[in-house]
């Protein structure tokens, strides 16, 4: 978008616009720097992601090492900082490793759905007419399922497992992303500057890439970022129902399910995986809200 403006604006006019010439992303960065709440949650999010990536180096114990005599021990027991789970495995190590699987299962489907759904939406919005009707009516059908139900239906029918869970979540996220992209594309397509570009003989490929995508990417990315938190909650939910990751893999939802049986012995351990999910999803939502505010050029 910033390039689109600088390409068409004469240099003299750009100077007239005022001293604070930052460009679009510059403005977004500038606004974010002065938004302590958003910065705080972005920091937490980065820490969670780093902890998951570097879990092999950070984890004090082997997350698969079981011990019959050390089951469900409280935090601080013999070097187990957060205690042990129902099979005597170190909780902290499993939470750290669990972040890898849970975050992947929450984020990857959103990324794939952004590419597929966003792409379909741009095609539908740009082509209009029959193509638009075809794509959007198919999306309407998938829209007719509550998201949890659709995820459960597809992964349940496919027989569970991490990969099937991710396929199910991808299918859940394609329709809403497609709708956002379609709306944004339809709006842009009817603007004068797109007509102007086409009238000057710009090839469709260039108009799509330069004029349309530059304006559609913003809303689609903001929307996608708000879906990641939903993705993490849904992915953990699938594992919680026994439809996602299989034991003994460490995954926050699966840990929650296994430790649920132990609430009478070790209630704290049963609450811990959920706290990890909660911290991640709150940070993701707050960061996404802050980003939305910073990227809103009209305010």
């Amino acid at each position, binding site marked *: 978008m910033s390039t689109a403006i600088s390409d068409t604006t004469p240099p003299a006019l750009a100077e007239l616009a005022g001293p604070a010439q930052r460009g679009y992303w510059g403005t977004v960065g500038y606004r974010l720097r002065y938004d302590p709440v958003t910065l705080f949650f972005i920091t937490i999010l980065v820490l969670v992601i780093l902890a998951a990536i570097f879990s092999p180096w950070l984890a004090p114990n082997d997350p698969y090492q079981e011990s019959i005599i050390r089951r469900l021990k409280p935090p601080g027991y013999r070097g187990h900082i957060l205690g042990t789970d129902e099979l005597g495995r170190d909780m902290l190590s499993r939470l750290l490793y669990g972040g890898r699987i849970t975050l992947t299962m929450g984020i990857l489907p959103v990324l794939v759905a952004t590419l597929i759904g966003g792409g379909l939406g741009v095609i539908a919005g740009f082509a209009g007419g029959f193509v638009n009707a075809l794509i959007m009516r198919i999306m309407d059908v998938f829209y007719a399922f509550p998201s949890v139900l659709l995820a459960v239906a597809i992964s349940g029918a496919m*027989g569970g497992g991490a990969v099937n869970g991710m396929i199910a979540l991808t299918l859940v996220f394609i329709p809403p992303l497609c709708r956002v992209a379609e709306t944004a594309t339809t709006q842009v397509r009817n603007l004068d500057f797109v007509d102007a570009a086409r009238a000057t003989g710009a090839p469709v490929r260039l108009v799509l890439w330069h004029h349309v995508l530059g304006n559609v990417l913003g809303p689609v990315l903001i929307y996608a970022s708000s879906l990641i*938190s939903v993705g993490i909650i849904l992915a953990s939910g699938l594992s919680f129902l026994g439809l996602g990751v299989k034991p003994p893999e460490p995954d926050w939802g699966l840990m929650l399910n296994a430790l649920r049986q132990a609430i009478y012995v070790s209630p704290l351990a049963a609450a811990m995986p959920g706290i990890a999910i909660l911290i991640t999803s*709150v940070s993701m939502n707050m960061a996404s809200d802050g980003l939305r505010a910073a990227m809103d050029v009209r305010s």
Partner: protein
Amino acid sequence: MFSYILRRLLAAIPIALGVSMVCFALVYLAPGDPIQTLLPPDADAETVDRLKRLYGLDRPLPIQYLSWLARVAVGDFGRSIATGRPVAEEIRRSLGNTVLLASVSVLIAFSIAFVMGTIAGRRAGSWIDRIVTGIAVLGVSLPNYWLGIVLVIIFAVELMALPASGMAGERFDPTSWEHLQFLVLPVFTLSMIPVGIIARTTRSAVSEVMNQEFIVTLRANGLPEWRVLRHALKNALPPVLAVMGLQFGTLMGGSILVETVFAWPGSGYLLSKAILTRDIPVLQGTILVLALIFVATNLIVDLFQSTLDPRIRRG
């Protein structure tokens, strides 16, 4: 108005058919042949063939779909593999419990969130607005199955004040605490997400209305603030009611996790048991019914909203 209702009804038919196709296709997503789940692994080819003909699986897919649709249309969803009972009967027995849970949750969520959102929307940007917005974000970020477990730990395990799971009996009696107490924790858990969503909608609707010129006029005419607010709320209500209606549909289909945590004998719990036992007929039937309820709620909300506010009628 009448032609509008008719148009919306007609537009819902292809959606409902599409939903039924997705549900029909679920069986074919399942790994392996549907027949293999019914037969022992060492069954000979002749038995497999005979069973295939019996279930009509040797016919082309469109024909299979149409005959399935014809059976479903008269309420025949087949039999449960796990219990042998008709799927329709299983769904009928559990659906009422989910309707109860979802409707009570949505009504309670609405009463809490509407007050919260109104307070926040009147003073957009104030500290109380920040708190309400914070609670709303927390509501939609909470994994509600986890909240359910935490509530069980606090109120059932530690305080022993409320039952951890289940339901008192087959027939729900809303006048006895014996029955009502089972509803408290599931309802609270399930209402968290709608509280967040309804509070957000109310906040933005109220703050938008409060900035309109007619509010300034009312104030300039010397109306007391509570009467100004009454006018504002009347204008802010339709979008909030619409979101509330949509949330009911979402909860009907999305209560599976909470019902599993509390072993609440509703359609979500039925679904969760069907997944564990790989009971595909129950899975398929329940999902179809819940999705159709979702489509119907969306349609009703749409019609209701366009009655309240004719400007938003869709073409």
